[in-house]
């Protein structure tokens, strides 16, 4: 992916910034221009706390190009406390320790490297909850 595209997404990748609807209070990640619930257009930025639980997960053995070095890795659907679900890798945990319902928190880690000369992309992952 090109540099401007990743730069554009920095608030999402590094701090889970989404939007909150000023009409109905619904929160969204990724950020939106139209609230899916009430169709309102008055939205403001909202930074998610980054804590949640695992809704589902998979252990990837055959990775897409660029991710081969990391197999096996875990990708999960995480239910955030604020009531939004995000897709992210789990980190600091071995695949056989993961379970549905386990509490996790967001950290920023390397997502991938684009070859020797390309960019190194960082973004959110989730680890088992350490912070009380």
């Amino acid at each position, binding site marked *: *992916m090109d540099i401007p595209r990743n730069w554009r997404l920095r608030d999402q990748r590094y701090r889970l910034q989404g939007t909150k609807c000023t009409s109905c209070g619904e929160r969204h990640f990724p950020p939106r221009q139209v609230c899916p619930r009430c169709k309102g257009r008055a939205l403001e930025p909202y930074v998610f706390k980054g804590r949640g639980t695992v809704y589902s997960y*998979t252990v*990837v*053995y055959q990775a897409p*190009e*660029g991710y081969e070095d990391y197999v096996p890795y875990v990708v999960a659907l995480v239910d955030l406390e604020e009531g939004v679900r995000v897709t992210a*890798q789990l980190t600091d945990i071995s695949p056989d320790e993961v379970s549905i319902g386990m509490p996790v928190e967001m950290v920023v880690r390397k997502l991938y490297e684009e070859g020797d000369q390309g960019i190194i992309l960082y973004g959110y992952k989730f680890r088992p909850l350490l912070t009380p």
Partner: protein
Amino acid sequence: MRDVAIVGIGQTPVREHWDRGLRDLAVEAILAAMDDAHIRRADALFVGNMLSGTLGFQEHLGALIAEYAGLEGIEAVKVEAACGSAAAALRQAVLAVQSGQVDVAIAVGVEKLTELASKCTTNALAMAADADYEAVMGLSFVAINALLMRRYMYEYRVNKEDFAAFTVNAHANAQHNPFAMFRMPITREQYAAAKMIADPINLLDSSPVSDGAAAVVVAAADKAWEFSEAPVRVAACEVGTDTVALDNRENPLWLKGVERSARRAYQKAGISPQEIGVYEVHDAFSIMAALSLEASGLAEPGTAVRLANEGEITPQGRIPIATMGGLKGRGHPVGATGLYQVVECVLQLRGQAPAAVQVPDVQYAMAQNIGGSGATVITTILERLTK
């Protein structure tokens, strides 16, 4: 709006066609469909395709394929909706003829997935998902379906081994279909031992990367008998959508796109789900077959796997699916798949399916083509016509 019918069908075998290009495959399917309808011309061509640009560096398929099929000069465009592209093209052909703007339209779906190395194909297929929020996390298309399957097993207390019933049925049927990619049966033991791709999805849960093309000729129903000895009425061809990213769905185990599309189709056709005699399901993965059966109103939530294990999905069962192998056994040339499903439904309605998988006296057959993990769904209901 006038009634429309399918008056001609054509398909190429689903294979790794190393010796044939995208246009060769598309033209073969189109010519077969035109011969079947006894026509030498058409007014419009709608080409379903997902990845010709990414994998073959070729876009602009409408004009290109019209030209090589001997149809140069007619209206022709490409239609894209990920793995739902082919049925989305059929929808355009149906609308064109229904409206009266066009008398004879051809819909063709074509895909050439083996053009590049398999890693590129994996990345390209992930383009059906959200690039910024799903694919970037290292999530392949298989992995997205694995997330669904894991949650399904958890919520409904279903064992992984029980999903074998879908694969076993698909392969058992595919062996009778000369156009199918995998013409050999598989056992539950082979399923249990298959290599894991994205746990819990293994190789035998997944449809194969392959090439192929399928086409149909659409004409006004009141003229259908002028073209064909066995025309089939398009009772409905309805599109429903859902969020592209799985995580934006409140309940990912309920495919709202399927529900919306199927409900519209039943309503348009004026029938209930129970009247469907054959259901060509979008079984790109076993879990998709289960979720589709449920959201289409053919099984209660959480019961599709049991239904499959009770033998109800075989050609002799209550709701036969994947009668010619489905995506798993026939193969899944993504942007062509939806029209393979339709061609197979037409064969069933005509009574021209291979004897071992022919379902007797089918009045209504349903083909359901899905783009992505359920974001675009096209449900087509076909009805047998009698003179």
